[in-house]
């Protein structure tokens, strides 16, 4: 939108919101919101504490392992369901159900099965992320024009080559879109997992801060998490843009 003739960039209203936050905080209007400046200060201090660094390491490592598993399993299952009609008919319903189900309800189950440690978190991340990856991969594989595969076969490509050289690449835009959504859900998974387990990682920190009502630390940690989620989504988005050029001409 334009103001006084100057075009304002998209996310710039966030600055306005931060100002609002600052004012609300200083006026002590809502107990929940300390002044934004205070949060920033505490953020700066927070990232230097060893407790935060270990918690971050826990979060990052469980997240990466869980996502890696989700991507491998998700893409494989998605390709299978996209190519084999029987697989789609048998599994499609369940994938759809789990993709929109309140998966947080499953975390207590995970806690019993896998204990109250990092394994549970990894499985959480995996479960939150994998379904959308399957769905988008499947959609991408199904949308491949058959003539592309016929072309590869007419030039003598074997089965493996067709999958590796044609199918994966042709479906890549949708796969990456699915992975981006998977990352966002995975972040939710790692946070919810830690919140419910509450004795490790960020969950432990959140528990500490909320019990002692350390609002500035709490918001600082929240901002760290939010920033992490957005950065991750942006990175995948950038990767998507790099291959976007051929997404449009595939039809």
């Amino acid at each position, binding site marked *: 939108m334009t103001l006084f003739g100057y075009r304002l960039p998209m996310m710039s209203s966030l600055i*306005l919101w931060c100002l609002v936050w600052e004012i609300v905080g200083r006026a002590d209007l809502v107990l929940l919101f300390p002044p934004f400046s205070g949060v920033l200060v505490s953020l700066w201090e927070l990232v230097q504490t060893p407790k935060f660094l270990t918690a971050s390491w826990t979060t990052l490592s469980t997240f990466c392992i869980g996502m890696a598993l989700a991507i491998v399993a998700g893409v494989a299952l998605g390709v299978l369901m996209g190519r084999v009609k029987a697989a789609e008919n048998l599994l499609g319903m369940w994938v759809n159900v789990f993709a929109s189900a309140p998966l947080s*309800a499953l975390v207590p189950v995970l806690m019993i099965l896998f204990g109250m440690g990092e394994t549970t978190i990894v499985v959480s991340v995996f479960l939150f992320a994998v379904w959308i990856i399957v769905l988008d991969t499947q959609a991408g594989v199904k949308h491949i024009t058959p003539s592309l595969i016929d072309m590869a076969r007419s030039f003598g490509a074997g089965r493996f080559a067709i999958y590796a050289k044609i199918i994966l690449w042709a479906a890549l835009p949708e796969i990456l879109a699915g992975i981006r959504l998977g990352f966002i859900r995975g972040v939710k998974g790692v*946070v919810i997992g830690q919140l419910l387990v509450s004795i490790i990682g960020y969950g432990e920190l959140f528990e500490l801060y909320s019990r002692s009502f350390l609002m500035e630390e709490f918001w600082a940690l929240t901002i760290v998490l939010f920033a992490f989620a957005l950065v991750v989504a942006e990175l995948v988005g950038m990767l998507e843009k790099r291959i976007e050029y051929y997404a449009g001409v595939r039809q």
Partner: protein
Amino acid sequence: MDARLEDPIAAQIAAEPGEQARSRRQMVWWRLASIALFCLAWEIAGRVPINLAFPTFSATVAAFAEMIADGSMLKAYLLTLQPLIIGLIVSALVGVSVGVAMGLRKSVEWIGAPIFIVLQAAPVAAVIPMVTFVYGIGLTAKVISVCLLALPVIVLNSYKAVANVNPSLINMCRSFLGSRLQQIVKIILPDASPVIFAGLRLGISAGFIGIILAELLITPTGIGDLITYHRAVANYAHMYAAIASIIVFSAAALSLLQWVEEKWIRPEKKRS
């Protein structure tokens, strides 16, 4: 003089009702096979057992029946559904209005879009325990939890829907002298409704997550209470039954919404 124009293709377009009915019946068989496969896998996994805390499918069903019989399931749902439904209605009304406003006016878009984008991408769940500190552990806190999770996705989908309306249709309306209000009501909203409904479906999913988290993180009531209690006394079959019931319930709610959309809003969809 024969004023009528003939269309040779009109004669060719005949619905093939036989084929459509046949494939629909096939889908039903596949669905049943799929469910049977799932139950079988669960039963086997429970008998192996892959874990002492993993009950069989049959044990879970039995526990479910028991909880229905003694009324605990019903009571739990009544407690859970209250904040869920209130939260969803609020989120739907506010969310669609804000989203549509964002799609129609650049200034609203500028103010709102970044906030909701951040809220949707970020793990808002972290904030839920905090909500209790201001709003206590009652109904309000739980409604807010539902709204926190459902509102952003509804807003963003409604916004995207309105912003991506087919411009050719709007031009067509202008060419027949439609006013701005007519454009909004007769063209923009109907054209945007599929995506708005998709947003509502996502919102319902998110709302379920919100209420579950609220019940597991704030104070257990309703279904969350069932889950926590049975876990504490190691009634694993009952715990699993409660969890499965909420998942099935959310899937049913989503199907219902889809049915509503096809029946009332976009009737042309159900024919295809």
